[in-house]
């Protein structure tokens, strides 16, 4: 069964550094998402992406964040200047064209900011 893959599984970065989290969505999916989960808290929506542009973003997704689909397979989340509070598990998800299809999640990238 096709799956969403995320790399790396764990990223440790110094505060103030840039970090790029990578995702390979399921190949025929058209909608892409990033969520985050701070330790012990619920999963929160960051951004959705469709047709090479952001469809919706949350208040968490400020100017420090950006997303890109640089080629036909990858979907990346960039944090320009990381803060301690960016430490979290980041999940990528993708969905097929039909709105009655569920989002499929990757295993996440655990981001630790020192």
């Amino acid at each position, binding site marked *: 069964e096709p799956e969403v893959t*995320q790399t790396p599984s764990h990223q440790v970065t110094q505060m103030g550094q840039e970090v790029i989290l990578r995702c390979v969505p399921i190949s025929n999916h058209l*909608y892409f*998402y990033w*969520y985050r989960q701070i330790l012990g*808290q*619920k*999963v*929160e*929506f960051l951004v*959705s*992406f*469709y047709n090479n542009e952001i*469809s*919706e973003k*949350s208040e968490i997704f400020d100017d420090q964040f950006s997303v890109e689909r640089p080629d036909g397979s990858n979907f990346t989340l960039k944090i320009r200047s990381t803060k301690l509070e960016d430490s979290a598990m980041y*999940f990528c*998800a993708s969905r097929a064209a039909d*709105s*009655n299809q*569920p*989002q*499929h*999640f*990757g*295993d*996440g990238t655990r981001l630790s900011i020192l």
Partner: protein
Amino acid sequence: AQSVTQPDIHITVSEGASLELRCNYSYGATPYLFWYVQSPGQGLQLLLKYFSGDTLVQGIKGFEAEFKRSQSSFNLRKPSVHWSDAAEYFCAVFWGGTASKLTFGTGTRLQVTL
């Protein structure tokens, strides 16, 4: 505002006992409803979904959930819990729109005693 409530933060059941995890959602329109499971250090695995039709839906691993419109609820059930079911369970809601996000509940941590 759209919200999802899982009133039970932590539930402990004995192996072989039945299980019901509660989920309630706000907002007037009938949403699409999901249950995801997260094992420690893992990603989010879809257990089941409800879009329309029969209000009792079957999922993987022997789980089922019932949508009750009058109660704005989508409770997850399993008749006989196995030790491997110990995990965190998230209810999630999608209110429609082409690229709309999932809104997650705060999760219920299930502990299974032998």
